[in-house]
């Protein structure tokens, strides 16, 4: 490799000399004492092959995680796998690229045909989803370094009220919606920008990044995986795919005996307790509520869309070009030092202002459409979760919530039911 770099530098030196003969202000001297000009050092980036190794490691750890969760039902195994993932994907690979952030690359690629995506990024995006589709969120359990980071420091989980969890559980949808909007308009990758842990992985970050990370770490001591549950946008996709997964971690290997031992075992509130046999509410009210919801959902979608459309300019104002155009349009507007540099740079580049305005008009239009879609989507999410919460689902056993369960297999250790010999065993003290 080094040889190639050297060769490159040498060639570049030769090529350059030839071409530059006419454009230099001060010609290159010819040394009389035979001084040799040193080669220009250009350190080579990581070999392209290594990214495929990362894909392989991801595939292997996903397989191992699924095997540990579904077949071995081993919390211990999952624990050590997450330690490995934290070390490899976190501290060794330094958190980039991760499936969580890859969502944005995919979206940007879909909306901007000119954007080039390495094939490995697509694989990083797709593989955890496919595994989730068949085995539940085993990616979250043992492969995601962000999850591992929070999971490992969990000390004394506080049980959040279920209704609060349900309400906070909608935040990731908003985050995902915004991330998609900003990625689709090529504005910014907000998931990466506000990644709380990547600074720890790299031993280097801005102060605000460390601050954010520190807060999440402190929270993680007492609240199980706060980022995963109440922010992670990729978690939304995993949650939805996991709902229809072919296999999934079960608390009891065979039949639940309703011993209630696992009731408090899940630090993430993902165990669903048996519902009462009969609905305590009148049937009429339920029906009524459904009728209301069928009207309300479209209304919510429209209201959300309308609100989104109204604030599209606010949403767009973080786009650098929009910001620039605003200043060019209103020269009286107060200019920060940073903006002044940007304005100067724009003027130096010599691009006509009109051209920029035309571009920005297109961007704003995109944001307008995007604002409607984002608002409508959020309206739909809120409406559907309201509908879901109005539905009575009879459910007799202690089971994991297929969507929110991270398949960490903690609950397994609490279940007295054993696979081979399903007799009640006395718990050891």
């Amino acid at each position, binding site marked *: 490799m080094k040889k190639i770099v050297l060769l490159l530098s040498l060639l570049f030196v030769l090529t350059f000399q030839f071409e530059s*003969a*006419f*454009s*230099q*202000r001060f*010609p290159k001297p010819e040394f009389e004492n035979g001084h040799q000009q040193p080669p220009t050092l250009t350190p080579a980036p990581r070999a392209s092959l290594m990214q495929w190794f990362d894909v392989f490691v991801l595939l292997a750890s996903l397989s191992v995680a699924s095997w540990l969760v579904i077949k071995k039902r081993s919390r*211990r195994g999952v624990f050590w796998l997450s330690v490995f993932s934290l070390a490899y994907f976190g501290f060794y690979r330094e958190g980039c690229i991760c499936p969580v952030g890859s969502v944005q690359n995919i979206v940007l690629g879909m909306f901007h045909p000119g954007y080039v995506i390495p094939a490995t990024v697509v694989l990083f995006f797709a593989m955890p989803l496919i595994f989730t589709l068949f085995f539940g969120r085993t990616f979250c359990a043992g492969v995601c370094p962000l999850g591992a980071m929070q999971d*490992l*420091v969990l*000390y004394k989980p506080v049980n959040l*009220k*279920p*209704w*609060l969890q*349900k*309400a906070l559980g*909608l935040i990731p949808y908003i985050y995902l919606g915004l991330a998609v909007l900003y990625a689709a308009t090529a504005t910014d990758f907000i998931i990466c920008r506000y990644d709380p842990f990547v600074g720890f992985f790299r*031993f*280097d970050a801005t*102060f605000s990044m*460390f601050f954010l990370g520190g807060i999440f*770490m402190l929270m993680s001591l007492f609240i199980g995986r706060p980022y995963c549950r109440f922010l992670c946008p990729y978690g939304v996709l995993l949650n939805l795919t996991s709902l229809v997964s072919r296999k999934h971690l079960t608390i009891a290997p065979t039949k639940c005996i309703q011993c209630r031992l696992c009731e*408090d*075992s899940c630090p993430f509130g993902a165990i669903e*307790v048996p519902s009462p046999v009969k609905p*305590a509410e009148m049937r009429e009210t339920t029906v009524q509520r459904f009728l209301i919801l069928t009207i309300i959902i479209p209304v*919510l979608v429209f209201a959300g869309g309308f*609100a*989104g459309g*109204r*604030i599209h*300019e*606010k949403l*767009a*104002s973080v786009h650098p070009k*929009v910001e620039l155009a*605003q200043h060019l*349009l*209103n020269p009286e507007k107060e200019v920060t030092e940073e903006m002044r540099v940007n304005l100067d740079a724009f*003027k*130096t580049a*010599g691009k*006509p*202002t*009109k051209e920029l*305005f*035309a571009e*920005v*008009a297109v961007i*704003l239009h995109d944001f307008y459409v995007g604002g409607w879609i984002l*608002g409508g989507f959020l309206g739909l999410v*809120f409406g559907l*979760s*309201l509908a879901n*919460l*109005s539905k009575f689902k009879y459910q007799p056993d202690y089971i994991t919530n297929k969507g929110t369960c991270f398949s960490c297999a903690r609950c397994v*250790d*609490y279940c007295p039911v054993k696979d081979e010999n399903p007799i009640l065993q006395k718990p*050891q*003290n």
Partner: protein
Amino acid sequence: MKNYNKLPETNLKLWKGLALFAGIFSFIICFLIIVNFVQINRIDPVNVETVNALVQRLHENPEDLALREQIRELDLLARKAYFTTQWQIRTGGYLLVAGIALLILSLQMIISARPKNPIPSAQAPENYLFTQKNARKWISAGGISMVAIALLLAFLTHNKLGNNLSDASKPNQITENEEVVEIPVAEISDSIKADQIVNEVSVLDNQIITTAQDSSQNTVKTQSPADIPAEKPASISKVDDFPSDDELRRNFPFFRGFDGLGIAFQKNIPTDWDGATGRNILWKIKIPLPGFNSPIVWGDRVFLTGASNNKKEVYCIEASSGKILWTVEVKDIPGSPGTSPKVTDDTGHAAPGMATDGQRVYAIFSNGDIIALDFAGKQVWVKNLGVPKNHYGHSSSLIIFRNKLIVQYDQGAGGQVMALSVSTGDILWSTPRKVKISWASPILISNAGRTEIVLVADPNVAGYDPETGVELWSIKGVIGEVGPSPAFDDGVVFVTNDYSKLLAIKVGEKPEVLWESDEYLSDVPSPVAASGLLFLVTSYGAVACYDAITGNKFWEHEFDEGFYSSPMIVENRVYLVNKKGVTHIFKADKEFVAIADPEIGEKSVCTPAFSNGKIYLRTQTSLFCIGS
């Protein structure tokens, strides 16, 4: 329950102690890192204002040794602080990770030692319906408040501003299109160049948005000067504000006037004056520093430069009074060499002519210093282009195309032609030229619907696209140390040099040599051509007139004294100043008809500049304004 979870009692205590220790340790380290972070933001090595201020003071009194010591100490301190802080943060980071790892480990041990609930908690799980109801309530509240906040933001804050932008960017485009299309359509009926314009229109239709601005300029160019409305340039984007050709013709913006072609469009030019008696001399002023550059004129301002070995100055003179309005000394240019390059006495340090676009004036000196000043004498930008390798001294004058300042920089090695942004001085393009040193100046020609820069040097004459710097054509021409600039008339470029030949080149897609001659050759004065006639002036005193197309010689005339100044054609008369300061005025005609030979009384090698009713003539020491 698995046995590995069990820990002996004593170990548990140990782990708890360890956890406490690791926790406190991590917290302290974390705190220290934060303190360091704050520090690192304070000690920014890139902007150590104190050091910079001290260095500035040192420049003012370079002999202050104590100050120098102080700077060195401060600099070392600042750098030390910066790198130590970084080291501290890094080391702190590792310590923190170690602390946290230990904390995690001990916490995990404690957790694993914790007995799993043997019995279910006494508390019954939250009521299912209650949960649903509460969640519904909060989700609704959250959703409604989000919509409310969104709408509030939309209606209360800067929404209007964004709307304006949205609106402004679109309609702007439409009005621009309409303007652009209208101009050529109206002209088709009465313009001779109708075909060409039709072509332009179709091009416009295709690229209307991206090139709207450029095209509108092109169409303006095809109009006759008289009917260009004064506010036309105002419709052009504010960023690229440059004068129209008509404005340029009304003034005298470059060496040898509009486009550097040696033709002035001014009226009522005097033919009679006398320097000795002061007849028709409006004013005369002394120029502080010598220089062989010819004056340029814009409105009521005359500009020229002067330079000695260690001083370079730009002068602005009020045309009506002859008062020097301001003098700007060009000094302390970053990158400018400490000593001026060696030049010969007959070239000097201020040989190249200035240029102006009506907003700023531009001047270049022998050492490659180039400066842009506004009309108040305030420096807009300045830079050094690198000292030109030129054994006589750099003498190629500046010229401006739209918003680009063109510099012909043919030198010993690495010659090039470049365009600088008039507003910033940034190099917009630069094209290497494989030619020898040239002392000629660039000219701009408008031919077959496009504008080209024409440059001459040994061994070729070449045309360049002024927008991109791309060489459009090149033809082998004159050799030697080329001094005379090219002349141009009706699609034909004329170049000449001593001991070489006189060439007439028909330019276009395929340039060809129409005719050549070696009877009269010039080594300093440039030829001038107009209305199918070419006037060639030699430095030893002979003047010849040729048919521009055929090369037939109409007449030749031998004057007593030689010429360094270039001829100018004004009001169909040729004005030609000889080395002694006598101006020969004769008809620009197929026959030689002398009109007058007024004397200024001082030696001169400069080309006169004109404004309506006035001539500005620079002599060796003075500037004369001639007029009645």
